[in-house]
C-alpha cells in the first residue's frame, strides 16, 4: 500500500514539527476556551458600578442591580476607572453612587446618582434597566421620606416599615414573554458554538498550511524521486491527498474529543458529526493540494494560506455566526464550505438532527471536495511531471 505509506509519512512529518503541535493541537483548544469564557451563553450587556460608601441605600442598590441576571455587573473601586472603561468600550455604561446617600435620603433630599454612557453604543438605553433597579430600591426610600415628614418619625424607622413588606404589593407588575424560536437556544452549551466554529476554521487552516509541506516535497525533489521508483503518478497524487485529508481528520477528531472531555461540548449525533468532518476535511485537503501545486514558494503559500483560511472562515460564520449576517451576506457566506459545515453542526447540535437531516449539507460538502480533488489532482500531475 504505497498510498498509505505516502499518507502516513505526510502525517508523521506534520507531527514531528514541534510548532505544529502548538498550532494544530494546543492553540485551537485555547481559542475555544477563551471564546467560550468570553462569549459563551450569549453576551449580557456589561455595566459598571461604583459605590462612594457602603451605606444602606448604596448597598441595597448594588444588590438590586447585581441581582439582574440579564446584566453583567462589574464593580469598580475607583471612579475614574469606571469612566475610562466606558470610554474604552469595555462596559456599556456605569452607575456612580455618591458617598453619603443615607444622610441625603434621611434629610429628605433627592439623592443624585450619576450614570456614565457614551454618545454612541447603547449605554443610554441601558440606563433604563439600571434606573428600574434603582427605583425598586428607592420606592421605599421615597415612602419613608414622605412618612417621616408627615408623622415626625425617624427616617430609618420609617424605612424599616416601608421595606417590611407589610404594605400592599406594587400596583403594577410586568411580565415578559419571548416570541419565536431562538436562533441560539438556552440549551446550547457555553462552548458548543465556538467549538464547531473553530473546528472548521482550524481544520481548513491546517490543510492550507499543509500546502507548504507539499511545495517543500517538490522543491527538494522528493516527488521526482518517487516517480523514478515503480510508483504510478496516480499513487503519488492519491497518497498526497490522503495525507492532507488524514491530517485534517486527526486534528478534527482530536478537537471533537478534547472539547467533549474538557468542556462537555455537545457535538450532536456522532455519526452525523463525523461525516461532516470527513467531507469537510476532504474539502480542505483538496484546497491544500491545489495551493501546493500552484505555488512555487512556500513562504508565499503560507501567507496566502493564512489570508484564505481566516478570510473564508470569517465569511463562512466561524467568527460571528452567519445567522446574524444580513440576508445578502448570508448568501455570500454560503459560497464557502465553512457555512455548510456549520449549518450541519447547527442542525445536529441545536435542533437535535440526525444524519438524514444533514444530507443536503453533506451533499454540498462532498461536491466541493470532489471538484477540488479533481482540480488538485490535475494540477499536481502537471506540477510533479514538469521538468
Amino acid at each position, binding site marked *: 500500500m504505497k498510498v498509505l505509506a505516502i499518507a502516513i509519512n505526510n502525517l508523521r512529518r506534520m507531527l514531528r514539527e514541534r510548532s505544529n503541535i502548538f498550532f494544530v493541537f494546543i492553540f485551537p483548544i485555547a481559542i475555544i476556551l477563551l471564546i467560550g469564557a468570553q462569549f459563551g451563553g450569549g453576551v449580557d450587556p456589561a455595566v459598571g458600578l461604583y459605590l462612594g460608601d457602603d451605606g444602606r441605600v448604596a448597598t441595597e442598590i448594588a444588590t438590586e442591580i447585581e441581582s439582574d441576571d440579564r446584566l453583567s455587573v462589574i464593580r469598580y473601586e475607583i471612579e475614574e476607572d469606571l*469612566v475610562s472603561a466606558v470610554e474604552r468600550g469595555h462596559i456599556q455604561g456605569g452607575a456612580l453612587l455618591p458617598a453619603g446617600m443615607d444622610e441625603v435620603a434621611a434629610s429628605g433630599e433627592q439623592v443624585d446618582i450619576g450614570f456614565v454612557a*457614551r454618545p454612541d*453604543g447603547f449605554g443610554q438605553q441601558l440606563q433604563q434597566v439600571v434606573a428600574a433597579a*434603582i427605583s425598586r430600591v428607592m420606592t421605599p426610600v*421615597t415612602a419613608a421620606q414622605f412618612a417621616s415628614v408627615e408623622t415626625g418619625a425617624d427616617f430609618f424607622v*420609617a424605612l424599616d416599615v416601608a421595606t417590611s413588606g407589610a404594605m400592599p404589593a406594587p*400596583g*403594577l407588575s410586568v411580565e*415578559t414573554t419571548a416570541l419565536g424560536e431562538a436562533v441560539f437556544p438556552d440549551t446550547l452549551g457555553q462552548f458548543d458554538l465556538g467549538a464547531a466554529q473553530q473546528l472548521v476554521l482550524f481544520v481548513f487552516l491546517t490543510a492550507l498550511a499543509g500546502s507548504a509541506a507539499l511545495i517543500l516535497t517538490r522543491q527538494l525533489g522528493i516527488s521526482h524521486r518517487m516517480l523514478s521508483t515503480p510508483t504510478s503518478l496516480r499513487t503519488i497524487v492519491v497518497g498526497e491527498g490522503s495525507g492532507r485529508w488524514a491530517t485534517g481528520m486527526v486534528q478534527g477528531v482530536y478537537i471533537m474529543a478534547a472539547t467533549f472531555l474538557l468542556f462537555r461540548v455537545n457535538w450532536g449525533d456522532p455519526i452525523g458529526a463525523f461525516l461532516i468532518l470527513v467531507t469537510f476535511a476532504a474539502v480542505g485537503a483538496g484546497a491544500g493540494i491545489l495551493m501546493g501545486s500552484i505555488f512555487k514558494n512556500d513562504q508565499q503559500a503560507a501567507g496566502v494560506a493564512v489570508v484564505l483560511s481566516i478570510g473564508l472562515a470569517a465569511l463562512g460564520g466561524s467568527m460571528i455566526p452567519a445567522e446574524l449576517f444580513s440576508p445578502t451576506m448570508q448568501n455570500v457566506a454560503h459560497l464557502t464550505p465553512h457555512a455548510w459545515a456549520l449549518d450541519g453542526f447547527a442542525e445536529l447540535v441545536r435542533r437535535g438532527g440526525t444524519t438524514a437531516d444533514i444530507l443536503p449539507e453533506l451533499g454540498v460538502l462532498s461536491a466541493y471536495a470532489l471538484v477540488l480533488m479533481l482540480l488538485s489532482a490535475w494540477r499536481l500531475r502537471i506540477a510533479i511531471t514538469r521538468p
Partner: protein
Amino acid sequence: MSAATRIAAKDLRLRLRDRSAIIIGIIAPLALALILSTVFGGAFDAGSLDLHYGIVDLDQTEISEAFSGALGEIESQGILTVTEFSDATSAETAIEEGEIRAYYLIEPGLGEAVFSQQNFTVEVIGDIDAPTSAQIATSIAEQFGQGISTGQLSVGTAAVLTSPPPALEQVGIWAGKAGQADQSFTMTDVSAETRQLDQTTYFAASMAVFFLFFTVQFGVLGLLEEERDGTLPRLLAAPIGRTSVVSGKAILAFALGMISMTVLVVATSLPPMQATWGAPLGVLLLVVACVLAAVAIMGLVASIAKTPEGAGNLGSIIAVTLGLLGGVFFPLGQGDDFLSKLTLLSPHAWFMRGMGDLAGGAEWTAGLPAAGVMLAFALVFGSIALVFLRRRLWQ
C-alpha cells in the same frame, strides 16, 4: 553610508524583490481587514441598539394613556421609537418581520385596578433573539409601575407609623400630597468621551499590528539565514564591527515594519475602507514605538533559536499568542478581571489601546502613554536580544 545601513539597504532590495514580504506585510493584512470589517460591520452596527417598540392599548384609560405619555417622553430623548398597534396580532407580525423588537400589551382593566389598588400585569412580548431590547422595554414599564406604587407605599407607611390609626380624611390628604411628591432620586448623565475605535478602523489597526510581527521577522531572521548559508563568517571577516552586522539586520526589520505599517495606514484610509485613524503625529508615534517593540521581541526570538526555521516557528507562536492576547481578533477580558490584566503584557494590546485613545478626535499627546509602554518593551527586549546576538557572533 555606514556598514549597518549598507547591509540593511542590500537586504531590503532582496526582500522587496521576493514577494513573500509583500504578501505578509501588505496584502494579507489589507485583505483580512477588508473581509473582517465587512463581515463584522454587516452583522451588527458597532454595539448600538435600535429600539423600536410597539404598544397595544386595550385599556384606553387615563392610566394607560399616562404610560403612553411616559413612553413618548423617552422617545423624545431619542432613545427609542414607539408605534401604536390596534391589536396583539398585528404587533406580533411586526416582531416577526423585524419592524419592532418588543411590544407592550395593556389588557382592559389597568385603570380600574390602579384606582382600586389592585394588582395588574402589563405584558411585554419581545423577540426571543433580542433579549436586551425586551429587557429595556420591561424596565421602562417597571419604572412606571414603581411610580404608581410609590404613592400607595408612602400613604401606607405613614399610616402604620401613626397611632392611633389615622382618620380616613387624613389618608385622603396624604394620598393627594404623595401624588405630588418627588422621587427620592435623580439620575444625572456623566459625559464620557469615546476612546474606542470604530469597527473598520479596529480591524485595520489590529490586522496591521498582527502581521507586523511576521513582517519584521523577515528582517531579523536574515542573520540566522546568513549563519546557515555560511555567509556570516565572510561578513564577519570583513572590516565591519559585529554591532554593525546586528544593527544592519535590525534596521532592515525596522524599515520593513515601517513600510508595511505606513502603506496599511494610508491604504485603509482610502475607499472602500475609509478607516479613521486619529491625529497623524500620534499615529506615527504609536507605529514607530510598536515597530521597535516588534523588532526587539522578534530579535530576542532569533537570538535564542538555533536555526532560521526554529526561529520562524517560535516567532509565529509568540506573534499569534501576543496577538490573540492583545485582542486582534476579538477584545479579551471584561472590566478589570485577570484576563484584562494579562492583555497588558502584549504590545498588540497597547497599540490598540493607544489607537483607541486617539479615536474621537483626541490630541496626538493622547497616544503618549501607550507609546511609552511599547518603547519600554522595545528597550528591555531589545537590550537582551543585543547582548545575546553579540555573544552569539563571538562564538
